[in-house]
């Protein structure tokens, strides 16, 4: 658990981050979202002390981060940035091994770790370990950047606009990969983005910042249904907030909560339980049906989803 206690950063007269306090849950993805100049990157960098706070403090598992030299603290915290920041004069394997080397791991421990990570990011070690960063595609470079940040198995990973340089299709894939990686390693992730869609897609909790202040810090659904500030409502988008709300729940979640269980009628469309309600709605509108049969990942029928159930879920309460 990470606790930020009225963290403030001033440069001369300008207050970039203004008394931000928040608690970041262990083993989840927390997203800090805001427009450029909102202070979100500065806030993130104060966690690993790339920026030293003017006042306030950061506690990781109850311990003040100023209790040890900054560079030693940073070796325990993964850090991935936009445009990956890979070292062009080092191979992929050497890049990934950066922090293990700094921690003086023996070679026989580094090599298997590098290969494990390459495989976890769908890069064949035999083909990619000895390549140089410029020989990779943008998406591959980004994956190596994240693999490098995770190399020494940090329990906390900070990411500053990690997908900012990717095109939309690769970006969606990278976001899915990050969710999978987070589940696999159980890492606590704090991610900064300016993209509200990305925040909603990845964040278990989302912090909305503007002009150095933390406007609201809550679950994504609560940001939509109970915005604490008119600016939050504007940033989360009032035009499509119903659809955004639907996108936060999967069909499986709704059925599990006792959504509907009518017997399947012949000719109804079939949808997977992993789809979001937003996608399910789109599917229903497209096929012109008012109900769909839901099947689980194993293909077993789970029940029936009705248009009315989706409609009820997308309504402001």
């Amino acid at each position, binding site marked *: 658990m990470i606790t930020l206690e009225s963290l403030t950063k001033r440069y001369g007269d300008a207050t970039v981050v203004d008394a931000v306090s928040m608690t970041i849950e262990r083993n989840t993805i927390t997203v800090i979202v805001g427009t450029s100049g909102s202070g979100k990157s500065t806030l993130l960098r104060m966690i690993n002390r790339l920026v030293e706070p003017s006042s306030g403090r950061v506690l990781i598992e109850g311990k003040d981060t100023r209790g040890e030299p900054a560079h030693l603290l940073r070796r325990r915290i993964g850090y991935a940035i*936009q445009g990956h920041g890979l070292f062009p004069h080092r191979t992929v394997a050497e890049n990934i091994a950066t922090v293990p080397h700094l921690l003086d791991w023996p070679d026989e421990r580094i090599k298997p770790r590098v290969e494990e990570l390459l495989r976890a990011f769908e890069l064949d070690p035999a083909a990619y370990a000895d390549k140089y960063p410029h020989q990779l595609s943008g998406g591959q470079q980004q994956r190596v950047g994240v693999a490098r940040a995770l190399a020494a198995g940090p329990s906390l990973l900070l990411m500053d606009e990690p997908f900012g340089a990717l095109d939309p299709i690769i970006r969606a894939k990278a976001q899915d990969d990050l969710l999978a990686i987070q589940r696999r390693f159980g890492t606590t992730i704090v991610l900064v983005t300016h993209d509200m869609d990305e925040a909603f897609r990845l964040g278990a909790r989302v912090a909305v910042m503007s002009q150095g202040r933390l406007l609201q810090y809550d679950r994504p659904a609560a940001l939509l249904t109970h915005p604490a500030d008119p600016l939050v409502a504007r940033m989360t988008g009032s035009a499509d907030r119903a659809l955004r709300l639907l996108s936060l729940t999967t069909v499986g979640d709704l059925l599990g909560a006792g959504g509907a269980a009518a017997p399947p009628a012949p000719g109804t469309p079939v949808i997977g339980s992993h789809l979001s309600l937003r996608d399910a709605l789109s599917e229903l509108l497209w096929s012109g049906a008012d109900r769909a049969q839901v099947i689980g990942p194993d293909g077993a029928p789970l029940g029936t989803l009705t248009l009315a159930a989706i409609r009820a879920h997308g309504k402001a309460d």
Partner: protein
Amino acid sequence: MPRAATLLRLAALLLLAAFLWQPARFAPLFAPLTQYGAPAIYDQGNLLQLTLAHLSTVCLAAIASALVAVGLGILVTRERGREFLPLARALVNVGQTFPPVAVLAIAVPLVGFGEAPTLIALFAYGLLPIFENTMVGLQGCSRELLEAASGMGMDARQRLLRVELPMALPLILEGIRLSLVINIGTATIGSTVAARGLGEVIIAGLLSNNTAFIMQGGLVTGLMAILLYDAVGLLERRLCRSAHVH
């Protein structure tokens, strides 16, 4: 490097080696340049030894220039050393603009005749290209890259040794290469203050009006400059195959 060029350089190297090993055999080639039966090949000293002395003076000076210039370049690109930038710049600029002959004239009364004043003149003359290239190379490291290095837990020293210097290495080597080549030629003036080197051959030629001597000294110096330039270039490509890409 294309094949033909490689062969040409190899031929130049062989020719130079053969001439220095057995200069007497080349006498018929140089004989037409002499008058009144003067010797066609320099006979007041061993050409091979003079060449080696010349080379060692230049290399010694280059090593000293590189150490000081790279050190200065590192200093002025650090946060704490930034204020020294104007001073360091002025220093190396003076080294470059002050003619080496003038440096010799000043140095001789201080350190006497021989090797030492030449070393001082070459050292001062060779600082500028190395210093400027080191600085540009170190400043060329993107902020993003330095931030990534710090973010992963490198301290200032590790960042310099593992990221900044390797990234700047191609440019630093380029500076050393330039300074070496300039000084191979410049070192010939050392013979005016009794340093051993190929300048001796040229000066002997000038004094006795022997064009053959002048040609020998000049050709050996020139060939050496070209070959050294290529050799360092080769080394550079070997060392920084990957860092050359941007």
